[in-house]
Structures are given as structure tokens and as C-alpha cells.
């Protein structure tokens, strides 16, 4: 409801952002005589180009970790909600345990062990975030599993993977997608947060979080270093949240 009111106000923003960030093929040159649209950083690198390259990292980390944690979480949630009994107790208890460690702290301790880097960040984010999907998938599966077509499929000898894949998954995917869009924004923030702390993708690879961290040291002399990556981050997360809000609204109405 409220997102429907809001959407017209801010909607023109998000398709643009998505398109712009979607096709990131612009190379960042540093030759002389080129306009540096957003200034340069402490090593004379073009911030605009680094922003675009950083977007690549942010988005690919976020997309991959959303996908991975979604797959893991949804599988666990469906299994727990469908099989019940012991599976349910053990799996959902595991979810509680993961959820009770503040996500950033869990991420930090895992990165500290594994070491920073592109793939490790994805692993860490997956490890930290899958329980959220598990919760949602679990709750949805519980209600879907009660419906007649599930019992019918069981009676006809459908195996567990088949029932889950063919009957349950299509019926729970809506709410899972809503969570995934909201999580996308969160993942972008997480990745940037980890790089900001120096635990994410390592320099010299451009990453918004790391750019902000540099910018912090130059707030007094070069305001633009910290301003633009943060603005980009803010807009990306904002549009993800807007889409998530609107999605949850449409899906909520459809029910």
C-alpha cells in the first residue's frame, strides 16, 4: 500500500539505475587530456571510471551471494518445512544459531579466518545470510505442504526432490523473491562495509567501500573522493529497496 503511494514519486530513478549499472563496459582511461568527470583520487586515478568498475564488483558480489545464499537457504527451509520431525528441529535450530550472531561480526570472524578476496567475500556473505531465506521458505512451505495437490503427488509416488521442485518451489517463490531484492541491497552494503574495513576485495581493484575508506582520510582536502562512491552506493541500495517494496506490495495484493 505505502509502496504503491511511493512508487510514482521515486520510480523514474530505478529503471535508469538498473540499466546504467547493467551494462558496464566503459573502460577507465587515465591518459592526459581526458576529462575527469568526478575528479581523481589520491593516486590520480579517475574516480568516475573507478566508480563504474567498483559497481561491477559490488553488483557481482551481491548477485552471486544472493543467489548462493538463496539456493542454500531455500533448500534448507523447504526440507525443514516439508519433512518436519527431526529435520525440522535440527535445521531450524541451526538457523536460529546463525541468526543470533550479528551478521557483520560473523562475516568479520570468517573473513579473518579465510582471508579477504573476491570469492571469500561471497562465501562469507552466503554463510551469513542463508538463514534469512531458510526462515521464509520454511514458513511458506509449511502452509503450502498442507494443500491437496501436495498430498496427491505424494500418493502418486512423487519423490521428495520432485515434490519440492515441482509443487512447492513454484508456490513459495514469490515471497522468496521479495526477500532476495531486499537482501540484494543489504549485500551491497555488506560488501562495501567489508571493503571499507579492509576485509573485502583487495586493492588495487576498485571497490566502493575501499574508495570510501580512502576518502575518509581526505575529507578535509578532497571532498569528492568519499562523496561519489557513497552516493552511488546509496542510490543502488535505495533502488533495490524500492523494487523490493513494490514487489512485496504486488505479491501481497495477489494473495
Amino acid at each position, binding site marked *: 500500500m505505502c509502496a504503491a503511494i511511493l512508487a510514482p514519486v521515486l520510480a523514474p530513478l530505478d529503471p535508469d539505475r538498473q540499466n546504467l549499472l547493467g551494462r558496464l563496459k566503459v573502460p577507465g582511461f587515465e591518459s592526459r587530456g581526458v576529462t575527469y568527470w568526478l575528479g581523481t583520487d589520491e593516486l590520480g586515478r579517475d574516480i568516475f571510471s573507478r566508480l563504474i568498475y567498483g559497481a561491477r564488483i559490488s553488483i557481482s558480489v551481491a548477485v552471486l551471494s544472493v543467489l548462493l545464499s538463496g539456493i542454500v537457504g531455500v533448500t534448507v527451509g523447504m526440507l525443514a518445512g516439508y519433512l518436519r520431525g527431526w529435520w525440522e528441529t535440527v535445521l531450524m535450530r541451526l538457523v536460529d544459531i546463525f541468526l543470533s550472531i550479528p551478521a557483520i*561480526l560473523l562475516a568479520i570472524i570468517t573473513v579473518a579466518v579465510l582471508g579477504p578476496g573476491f570469492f571469500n567475500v561471497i562465501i562469507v556473505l552466503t554463510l551469513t545470510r542463508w538463514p534469512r531465506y531458510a526462515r521464509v521458505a520454511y514458513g511458506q512451505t509449511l502452509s503450502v505442504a498442507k494443500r491437496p495437490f501436495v498430498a496427491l503427488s505424494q500418493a502418486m509416488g512423487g519423490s521428495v526432490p520432485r515434490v519440492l521442485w515441482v509443487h512447492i518451489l513454484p508456490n513459495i517463490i514469490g515471497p522468496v523473491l521479495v526477500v532476495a531484492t531486499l537482501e540484494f541491497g543489504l549485500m551491497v552494503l555488506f560488501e562495501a562495509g567489508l571493503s571499507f574495513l579492509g576485509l573485502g576485495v583487495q586493492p588495487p581493484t576498485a571497490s566502493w567501500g575501499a574508495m570510501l575508506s580512502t576518502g575518509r582520510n581526505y575529507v578535509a582536502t578532497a571532498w569528492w573522493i568519499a562523496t561519489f562512491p557513497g552516493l552511488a552506493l546509496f542510490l543502488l541500495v535505495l533502488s533495490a*529497496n524500492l523494487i523490493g517494496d513494490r514487489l512485496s506490495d504486488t505479491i501481497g495484493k495477489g494473495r
Partner: protein
Amino acid sequence: MLIFLLNRLFQALITAFGVLTLVFFIQRLTGDPTALLLPETATQEDFEAMRRTLGFDRPLIEQYFAFLGDMLRFDLGKSFVQNAPVSEILASRIPQTLQLAAGALFVAFAIGLPLGGVMALMRGRWLSRWIMGFVLACQSMPTFWSGIMMIMVFGVWLKWLPPSGTGSFAHLIMPSIALGLLSLATYARITRSAVVDELGRDYIRSARARGVKMPRLVSKHLLRNSAIPVISITALEISQLLAGAVIVETVFAWPGLGQLTVQSVAARDFAVVQAVVLLGALVTIFANLLADILYSIIDPRVRLGSSS
């Protein structure tokens, strides 16, 4: 009531135990945590000596029980970097983080609750739409960015507030706002939906039909009944704030637990990192337990529902 309490307590204990186990195994993901504890310049002999002192050469299961034993005795171990017991190091940092979290919670409450209420009561008007936009902005704002921007504008350009560090009330203002923004958004949303829910109830409609004035209705009935979801979300917010503190404290050079965590990771002081993670988890578990109990006191239906 007693059965409900014991049941919840038992669940909390199981979760706490699970967290201990999880942290233990995460540290051993790469096989041998000795390397995490030593500086990069350590020799092979240092390595072996350290392994033996810490017992990492023993079988995994033995290490696990030794670890659990230490934790049960509240023995968090010793920091090799700072050469002091971890518990002392933590204790010296906790007050700062509490101060910051309290400030942030205050910001979130003082601004978030009224905003949520206004949004609910003025549904569909332009004011509510603007507030919703503001709330969404708060929600999407990276803490480290808003922090840096505030430092730049109020600390460096206008020189109204000290840009970083601690010591006076003025030092607390910017970090509290930076940390509180996300919680502010959560509170505004929760309050809004709680008040909207209550507004739709029969008793409100009949009261309005009887001619009870809106302000009286809001202060007498709405606020109290909308308080339940707000209270229960506070438990979750506390652990959010703790996690957020890691970044905010780094931005503002605030000497609390969060800064300690980041410094300890950089210094490979793993005993300290582990202790902060465990502390964070325990606080979260305890806060959830507290919320459950409060909830059941305010709304007895919860108690009945959960025990069945």
C-alpha cells in the same frame, strides 16, 4: 508462566551452545588456527611452540571440549598482541559502545516513533509520502557514508562538532545519528504498520462514532496497543546496533568494541575477535529472551500459543 520461562531459557541455552560450537569450527575452517595468532614474521619454531602451548596439536574433539570448558568458566583467554587478559580488554571498551548504542537508540526512538505515527495517521497525504521517502533514504544509507559526510560538513566545514574521537557530549552526537538512522527507519515502519493495524480495529471505530476526539484516542488507546511490536523489535535492534557499531566506530575513531574488533582483525589478535563475536551473540540471545518474556507479560496470548 514458569514452564514458558523455563522452556525459553532452555532454548536460549541451546542456541548459545550452538554459537560456541559454530565459532569454534569457523576458526578451524582452514585447519590450523595457529597461523591466525602469530605475526607473519614468525619462524617455524615459534609456530610449533605456539601450537603446543595452545594445544592445537591435540585431536579436534579434545580441543573442542577444552574450548567449551574455558568458556563455561568465562575464561576468554589471553591476547598475545596486547599481552593482557581478553576479558579486561573487553571491559575497558564496553562502556563506550554502550554509550554510543544508547545515543543511537535515543535518536531512533525520538525521531522514528513520531514519524511512524504521523505516517499512519496521515495516510495518503503528501506529508506521509515525504516521510516515507525520508525513511527509505535512511534505510538505504550506508552508515560509513553518512558518517563521513557528517564529519565533512559539520566537523570540517562548519566546525560545529568535533570530527572524531570521544570525551564530551558533542562527540557523541554525530556517531549516534549515523548509527541510529537504520534503526530509525525500522521504528518508523513498525510504528506505522502497528498504528494502521490498530486504527482498523472495531473499538477505535466505535469510539470515534461515539464522538471521542482523535488526540484523546491516540494518547489513551492507540499508543499502548501499538507498543507491543515496537518493544519486540527493540531486541533485534540491539544486536543490529552492536553490529553497526563496528563500522561507525571505525569512521569516528570511537574507542569501543567495534573499533577493537577491526583493530584486532588487523593485528591478528584472534582471541579478542572471537570474544567480541561471542559477546555479540550472547547479547542478541539474551535480548531476544527478554523480548519474549516482556511480550508474554504484555500479551498473555503469546504464552498460550507458544507452549502448545
